[in-house]
């Protein structure tokens, strides 16, 4: 990439947005970009037309596009426009562009990428918020897709991107696997076989954020409910150092990979983890029970041993499960990849975090938008597809498809698309049922035994039941070419068989499953009030654990803060001794307040001599810094908001902003 920047005040700058980072890498490879079409908008206001007009204008030096991936809260790079949009570039290909979206796009136009940062190393919007777009007076990060930036704003952002690219080039560590998201390594690393590399990559990344406390699998691999193609969900817990906990914009809490990237990982800071744990978040609870066998689950009895062994994957089918038990034990031991002494200290208290709130949260998740409601919407969609298929088959019976080979291919392609869509939905619904019943089983464990089932033994009835719900996972898509070779009666039979299966699935199977689920959930809900579980997790062990963790890791910071505080209070008090008696008493009262809260007093003034109060003292104003120890003790992710601060300020006119401390 060229490092020289050719932007001038006569250049024009447009912001481009994309749903995924992959579109940017595709664009760089193809040296093309395309903008979404705006339905109903006049031709001259379509984004690609505005860009083309700017490009062709004699008074414009260059046209630049500043790219930002939706949801990334960052700019990833910028490109220079090298041509207006033209249909002739269609053939050069941008296959896979915005694969996750459904927008219609203009013809492509040529671009030359000047900077394209790694996906995870974009220029954060927070760093560009001070740059105002003179066109609308708003901060640059608030610009919408295809909106124009003023040249000074555009140049400023481009320069920052160039600096970020230069810094990345000199400081980029040799990062393994998926962190080099812009490369073929990404795809390779996503293979299940490469899990070791993925873990080492994530742990290297996590170490940049703090001391790793624990690293554990999440999702199906943690529950022993995965299959060969299941993705890898990773959880890492770190204890961040003071400089990541005390910044103005709040402490490090949680980092997740962008949804476009695999594998899925979640990195929690210890304070954030404790916050979620004490709110009853089942995911946090599951992390504390990760890798635990669940003896409370039912295993197959002897009479069912053969069936059990078959389902559990005992190849010889003799039901003895010889080698498989050892393999399973090995797999189970791999769920927790790393655990520190500090983490194990928290795990010892895990039973005290089991609460009714976690059960309620499981139930809420089952009922929620991604639960039963989602399954219901899938069923509606499946029924619609069945109706469309049925109508199409009726029509097809009367057609003379063989008259025209192209026509026949086209018609059959439409059927194949419908059938594949129905299969997709069955896969999705199957996976959803599997998740919902797994949630039910875990809530049941929590309620019945006051502990969590995280590992479903291969020979347990529960596992067999749950994995059977995923039977459609292995279902492949219908091949277009293969269907074309079928004789007409065979093709019709295939279509009808798919239709029958989907209709049956959407009707009777769905109702049966839903009835079963609802029965289980209502049983859970009815037993919940009489359960011996506490309402909420016990806070004391978690907060005590966090306090110990912080005091060990941040001892130097706490000591430096305390030393400064003492020094400043002495100096301030010495300065105040010259004041008259009533005012000195006021200052003393202020000092007591600051001392009592363990804070630093940074500034003390008497801003106006005109507002003396009735007893002859003037109002004082001070500025303080909250106690570092207090800030480090418990970092709840909720931060005070500006609105809230404004609200407090509005109260100031009532006199309530004045501190009242009686010591």
């Amino acid at each position, binding site marked *: 990439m060229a490092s020289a920047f050719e932007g001038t005040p006569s250049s024009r700058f447009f912001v481009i947005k994309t749903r995924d980072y992959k579109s940017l890498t595709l664009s760089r490879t193809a040296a093309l970009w395309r903008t979404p079409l705006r339905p109903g908008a006049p031709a001259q206001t379509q984004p690609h037309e505005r860009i083309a007009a700017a490009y062709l204008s004699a008074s414009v030096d260059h046209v630049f596009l500043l790219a930002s991936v939706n949801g990334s809260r960052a700019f990833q790079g910028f490109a220079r426009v090298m041509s207006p949009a033209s249909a002739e570039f269609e053939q050069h290909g941008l296959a896979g562009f915005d694969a996750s979206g459904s927008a219609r796009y203009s013809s492509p136009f040529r671009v030359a990428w000047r900077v394209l940062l790694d996906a995870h190393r974009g220029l954060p919007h927070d760093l560009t918020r001070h740059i105002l777009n003179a066109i609308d007076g708003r901060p640059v990060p608030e610009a919408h897709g295809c909106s124009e930036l003023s040249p000074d704003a555009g140049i400023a952002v481009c320069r920052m991107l160039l600096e970020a690219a230069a810094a990345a080039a000199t400081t980029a560590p040799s990062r393994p696997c998926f962190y080099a998201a812009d490369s073929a390594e990404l795809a390779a690393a996503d293979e299940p076989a490469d899990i070791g590399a993925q873990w080492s990559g994530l742990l290297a990344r996590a170490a940049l954020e703090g001391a790793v406390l624990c690293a554990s699998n999440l999702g199906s691999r943690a529950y022993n409910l995965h299959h060969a193609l299941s993705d890898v969900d990773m959880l890492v817990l770190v204890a961040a150092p003071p400089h990541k906990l005390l*910044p103005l914009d709040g402490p490090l809490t949680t980092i997740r990979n962008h949804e476009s990237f695999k594998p899925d990982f979640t990195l929690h800071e210890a304070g954030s983890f404790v916050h979620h744990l004490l709110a009853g978040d089942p995911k946090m609870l599951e992390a504390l029970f990760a890798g635990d066998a669940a003896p409370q689950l039912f295993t197959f009895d002897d009479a069912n041993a053969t069936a059990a062994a078959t389902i559990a994957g005992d190849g010889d089918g003799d039901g003895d499960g010889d080698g498989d038990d050892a393999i399973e034990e090995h797999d189970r031991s791999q769920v927790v990849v790393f655990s520190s002494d500090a983490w194990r200290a928290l795990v010892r208290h895990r039973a005290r975090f089991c609460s009714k709130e976690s059960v309620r949260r499981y139930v809420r998740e089952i009922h929620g938008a991604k639960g039963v409601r989602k399954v219901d919407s899938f069923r509606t969609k499946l029924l619609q597809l069945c109706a469309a298929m049925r109508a199409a088959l009726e029509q097809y019976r009367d057609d003379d498809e063989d008259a025209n080979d192209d026509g026949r291919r086209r018609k059959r392609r439409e059927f194949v698309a419908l059938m594949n869509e129905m299969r997709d939905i069955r896969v999705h619904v199957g996976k959803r049922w599997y998740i919902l019943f797994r949630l039910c089983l875990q809530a049941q464990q929590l309620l019945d035994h006051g502990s969590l089932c995280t590992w479903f033994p291969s020979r347990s009835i529960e596992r067999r039941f749950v994995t059977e719900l995923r039977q459609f996972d292995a279902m492949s898509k219908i091949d277009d070419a293969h269907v074309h070779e079928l004789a007409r009666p065979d093709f019709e039979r295939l279509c009808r068989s798919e239709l029958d299966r989907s209709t049956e699935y959407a009707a009777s199977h769905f109702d049966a499953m839903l009835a079963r689920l609802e029965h289980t959930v209502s049983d859970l809900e009815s037993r919940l009030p009489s359960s011996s579980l506490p309402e909420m997790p016990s806070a004391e062990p978690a907060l005590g654990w966090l306090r110990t963790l912080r005091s060990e890791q941040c001892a130097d910071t706490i000591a430096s803060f305390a030393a400064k505080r003492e020094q400043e209070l002495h100096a301030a008090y010495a300065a105040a001794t010259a004041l008259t008696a009533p005012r000195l008493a006021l200052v003393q009262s202020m000092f007591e307040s600051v001392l009592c809260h363990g804070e630093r007093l940074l*500034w003390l003034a008497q801003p106006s001599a005109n507002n003396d109060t009735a007893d002859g003292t003037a109002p004082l104003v001070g500025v303080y810094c909250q106690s570092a120890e207090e800030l480090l003790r418990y970092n709840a992710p909720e931060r005070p908001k500006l609105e809230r601060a404004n609200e407090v300020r509005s109260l100031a006119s009532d006199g309530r902003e004045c501190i009242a401390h009686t010591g």
Partner: protein
Amino acid sequence: MGVNASLTRDDDACDARARQYTLYDIATFAKLLPKRTPSVLKLLFTPDEQVLWQSAAWAHLVHALRPRVLCRPVHETIARFLAQAAKRPANQAAVLDRGFELMLDAFHEAAAGGAASPAPLNIVQRHLAIDTARLPHSELVVDCVAPWVLQVRCGEL
């Protein structure tokens, strides 16, 4: 205080004497700074003779911030502020106190590019005559304050 930090502290217990001072938390002060609200600007431009005591850390911040906040948002803030004062003449004395005048003077000098010692009575006219195009849009005050807050909290400054 923890996460319940607010611009000022407002404890439950209160007595008449204690009501006579206000404490500002630096985190909220820093967050309000980009908006250049009058109260925050007043803190920043309090004349030296009214300061009873200041830490080295605060002096460091004020020195770095004063030139940075003089920009267009300040102009807008002052305009709003003066408009408000014009509507309610009784409040003018409170609004145009000594610290605020000082800030206005500094602002006017920055805008005019030269020294000026205007009389308070002419503040409104002078203010309206400022050529805002000569002022920067906005300096990155947060860029300066955020590291400062971190250093103060870590006891490094």
